[in-house]
């Protein structure tokens, strides 16, 4: 008995760590997609292209971690795209117009992003405005503010090293931005799986009332989650600034939909309480690979829209079907 018990416990733990919680369907989808692309275009399955895909998902990937938390507690954050733009502009303005060091600009950007998240969170908890509406309002406000900073103009002229963080591949492999994304993934996953705060998010998503009765400070956690989502959107804005070597108030338009799609494709339920970071990573990869692959295949942009819609629906439907 003990002999069979021990390895089983070990196996359990591993399975537990990388629990796909509802993301096996998407994982299979990702796999099928990759096989299909490798067969149909030579350019896809090359190290250079795969590293490109990693580069290209950094912004989405970082935002998706925050969005996973938000959706896990049964909320939604429509403001991430605009907060990204606002944070970008704050950074650019602080660094290139006010002339502070870039580090100060980044700090200012993250503070503003956190503040935006906190405002959304407080509207939800204090004033009982549904998350959809409070973050929709914040989306409009943050976009307006981002534009007002420079009256709609972009800001350019960052030092050369800044943009290179997004493009120099250390060890022929990792750019700083990709490394940043990986760190965010690991921290986001670890918090959710192994801390009591992370576990509480699942309880809140399952039922805020049950969580409250169990002594969880639901309001505080909720505000915290929107702050995290805001900060990560801000961080994504800085990464985007590196990728663009400029900051623009129009950046991140409709990114919220991509981000939500990635999270949900990855198996996190919009009704809250179910899902996780591993699934989200798969969701982000599906969207990234799909975009990249359709470009490599030279599919017309109009057809791309149709294909992306169909794949999103299929990925989620496959999971739902599997469950039955």
């Amino acid at each position, binding site marked *: 008995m003990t002999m069979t018990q021990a390895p089983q416990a070990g196996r359990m733990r591993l399975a537990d760590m990388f629990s796909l919680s509802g993301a096996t369907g998407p994982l299979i989808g990702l796999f099928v997609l990759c096989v299909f692309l490798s067969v149909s275009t030579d350019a896809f399955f090359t190290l250079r292209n795969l590293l490109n895909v990693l580069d290209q998902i950094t912004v989405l990937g970082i935002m998706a971690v925050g969005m996973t938390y938000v959706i896990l507690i049964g909320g939604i954050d429509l403001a991430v795209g605009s907060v990204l733009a606002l944070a970008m502009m704050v950074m650019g303005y602080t660094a290139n117009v006010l002339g502070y060091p870039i580090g100060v600009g980044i700090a200012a950007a993250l503070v503003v992003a956190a503040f935006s998240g906190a405002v959304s969170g407080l509207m939800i908890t204090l004033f009982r405005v549904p998350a959809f509406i409070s973050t929709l309002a914040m989306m409009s406000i943050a976009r307006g503010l981002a534009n007002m900073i420079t009256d709609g103009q972009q800001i350019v002229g960052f030092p050369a090293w800044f943009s290179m963080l997004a493009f120099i591949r250390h060890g022929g492999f990792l750019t700083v931005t990709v490394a940043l994304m990986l760190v965010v993934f690991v921290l986001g996953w670890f918090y959710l799986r192994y801390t009591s705060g992370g576990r*509480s998010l699942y*309880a809140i998503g399952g039922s805020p009332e*049950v969580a*409250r*009765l*169990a002594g969880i400070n639901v309001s505080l956690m909720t505000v915290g989650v929107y702050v995290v989502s805001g900060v990560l959107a801000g961080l994504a804005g800085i990464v985007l600034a590196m990728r663009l070597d400029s900051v623009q108030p129009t950046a991140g338009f409709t990114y919220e939909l991509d981000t939500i799609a990635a999270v949900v494709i990855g198996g996190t339920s919009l009704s809250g*309480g179910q899902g996780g970071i591993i699934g989200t990573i798969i969701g982000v990869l599906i969207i990234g690979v799909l975009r990249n692959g359709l470009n490599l295949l030279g599919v017309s942009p109009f057809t791309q829209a149709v294909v992306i819609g169909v794949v999103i629906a299929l990925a989620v439907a496959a999971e739902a079907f599997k469950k039955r």
Partner: protein
Amino acid sequence: MTSDNSPILSLKGIRKSYGPIEVLHGIDLDIRPGEVVALLGENGAGKSTVSKIISGTVPPSSGEMTWQGAPYAPANPRDAIDAGVGMIHQELLLLPHLTIAENVFVGRYPRRNGLVDRRTMRDEASRGLRRLGLDLPPNRLVQGLSTANQQLIEIAKALTLNARLLILDEPTAALGGEETQRLFDQIRRLKADGVGIIYISHRLEEIRQIADRVVVMRDGAKVQEFDSADVPVRTIVEAMVGRSLERMFPALGQPSAEPVLEVQGLTGANGRFRDVNFAVRKGEIFGIAGLVGAGRTELVRAIAGADPIASGSVHLEGQDITPKSPRDAIRSGIVLVPEDRKLQGLVLDHSIAENIAYPNLAQVAQAGLVTGGAVQGFAGHNIKRFGVKGQGNQNANELSGGNQQKVVIAKWLARNPRVVVLDEPTRGIDVGARSSIYDIIAGLAAEGVAVIVVSSDLEEVLGVSHRIMVMAAGRQAGILDYAEANDVSVMELATA
């Protein structure tokens, strides 16, 4: 026992109002360590409200509490938990998408090196469940567990709290006799450890077994206190309802020989019951008994079209009407009063009137139109008929649990069905109301309706049924006649 200890908790002049309505009128209550105080009263008397105030779930409007001599005013459940108050709420509060272990430890995950210690969590949860005789893998999701099992998990959650004061609000409402005894063993153990316990139940026969003191509430006030549980049930009931109650169970009429509902070789799609055959006659009350998890709920849900059927058929007056959806069943005249009123019976944030109208919209409509007035009128009539304490335009979640149950019954009986299936019909219903529900059941039968009653309360099935089918592990173990049915014969079949 240390009954002369100073109280852990005392309440003084606690009042509570919802809007303009005061539902508690100055409650005084002392709980001492190591004693079990039974809190009794009709539905809506205010028992749950008192418990919620103690556990920090709702704030009192006025009054004071002291906890071990110091002033106590919990602002939220966390404060109460930190002070040492544990509570099992009347409504089940489990998270279906999380594992059993996580549900047991929600909000107080065991930690090692600052991280959640999953192994301890699993082991502890497992131990807690086994004490209650439940052998479920702690990694299983709660989703899909029977109500009884969920109730036991809820109890395990409270038992592992290490509370100084434990409030159990109708913990046994969904349990069978054996589970109840295991719970009592645990309560005795806690008592010996000096934990104070408030025990709320409508099953008065339990009180004598477990309580040290009895407090009776009526309409938001404490009306009587007995210093021992050795009080005749009749006396308690009189204190509760303010009058004497003649009898519990009505006299049953003679069913006709003609079968109305016939179930042939029925097997559920998820395999929780297999090959069930029986027939219910016109005017007959057909009880279904069995241990928790025997598959009764799944069986009756399938008959009512709520769950898919793998094979077998359901016949109504000779016609094959095997339902594919609740809609089919309702059209044929079969209605189900479900086990879980919160998830299956009521839209909690809609009004009572709307809830009663939903399955009866065709009847409510006048000239094809459903007006607000018609809905109120229809509901008003049925609220009166079934003695619901509440107004038609009140939201369902503002009612006490027992009154919610009456709304669910009213909603289904309003449409004059041919077959009525009641799954745990008196769960959480007070004695007075319970006997009136039995009267309703007997009345239905007298009108020629075929009635199926599923209950874990043995006394109830025995008292109200013409025949009793006993289920064990998804199979029908036997059908007993009124004459041959008693606790012993039923239990023999159930454990066979």
